[in-house]
């Protein structure tokens, strides 16, 4: 039956189906990724966010969910201004964290097969 509206796509993640290998790799590159509590202060203060879609909170969430392409696309919108570092309540050097992630991906010359990423939704 058509009610004139439908379901929105679910943002819920099935933790049993998530590939955590990306997160574990990134933990070694930028250990502060574990300190983040996902409050979103960094995203709220980001100058570039409204124009480029950059959100460090979402980058970390994407990494936790194995969505490498999404994380890399968002990071490419960062201008490295460092405002997010000033507001992080956990004292994470977010600018350094972003540089570490970017450097890792820049040095990672392998062709990444994005089709391997599984859409993890319930």
């Amino acid at each position, binding site marked *: *039956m058509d009610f004139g*509206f439908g379901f929105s796509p679910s943002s819920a993640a099935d933790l049993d189906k998530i590939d955590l290998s990306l997160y574990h790799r990134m933990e070694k590159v930028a250990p502060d990724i574990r300190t983040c509590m996902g409050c979103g202060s960094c995203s709220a203060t980001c100058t570039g966010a409204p124009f480029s879609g950059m959100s460090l909170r979402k980058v970390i969430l994407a990494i936790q969910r194995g969505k490498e392409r999404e994380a890399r696309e968002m990071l490419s919108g960062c201008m490295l201004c460092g405002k997010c570092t000033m507001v992080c309540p956990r004292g994470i050097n977010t600018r350094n964290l972003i540089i570490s992630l970017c450097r890792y991906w820049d040095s990672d010359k392998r062709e990444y097969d994005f089709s391997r990423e599984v859409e993890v939704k319930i």
Partner: protein
Amino acid sequence: MIYQGKQKIWSEYQKEIPSDHWFYARSCIRQNFFPASEKYFLEICRDLMGKDIYETPHHTTCGGIAYHSDTIPQETAMTIVARQFALMTEAGYKNLVCSCITSFGNYTEILETWREFPELEAKIRELLWKSCKREFEKPEYVAHCSDLMYKFRNEIAEMAKFRLVDKETGDPLRVVEHIGCHYSKMFPHKGVGGAEYPCVLSGMAEAWGGQVIDYPERRHCCGFGFRQYLVKANRGYSLSNTRKKFESMEPFHPDLIITNCPGCPYFLDRWQYVISEMNGKTYGRNGYGIPVFTYEELAGLVLGYDPWDLGLQMHQVAVEPLLDKIGIAYDPAKKYLGLNEKEIMKPALPTVLKCC
């Protein structure tokens, strides 16, 4: 944890609720959705508990729906609420109890705002005087009706004719409790158990014999969200919220849902029909849905009131399988008979969701 330490921490999450002399403010929408809930709240408090609950036909909406839909400014909502307080003052009461969770949130928010900004209170007093020549005193205590029912839960359990147990096996029924967002998410200290451990409904369910189940999306919104529902283009968000909750609770096989908000039981009940028509999914056993009750309806059921007097025929999800499970007698032939046995209209049956 040491027992005394636990008690000390828990005491910080309690609130003292005066037991008598209340000015009662009804909800705008509950009488349409769940017509007997407010009637039986008054009947239980007045006739069974012998409490003084006063209501006046002059009170109006609290303005909460318009305020949360962004159609009136807060000053307008404040003046409407100030008029309610004036009615309470004129009637000689100091404790306000409201039937609606959004009203409770609205009254609390306004009192807190006035505490922070006394100049705003002065302005509202002036506006009220200019508009209707009334003056008011602020209530000493604001409670939600579920707070009172929580306070009387053990007395109700003593008088109960039925318990929330399976009559065949004797096992407690599996109860999902859903608390309205405006109860304690805005001002945690105003709710029993705060925002972290709200126990206003779980306390009732457990006192009446049920077993409360925990599930991942337990504190998620029901999906009403005012603008999400009121604007048709956004209605999918509302539906998706509700579906998210049902998908999360389904593996725990709940027997019933108890709620304390006007919107939550309505949406949790009606959306089950919409979900079933959209994708053929039902969440109860054997093609039925999960019945959703207000706390007054559930109190009425355990106290032995007739299910049709409690207005349970107005629910979308059939309640009969649950009544059979508890052992509550009902007459199917009287389901759609109104006052003085007058025939009320019988609804058409859904194509997927099983109804009796």
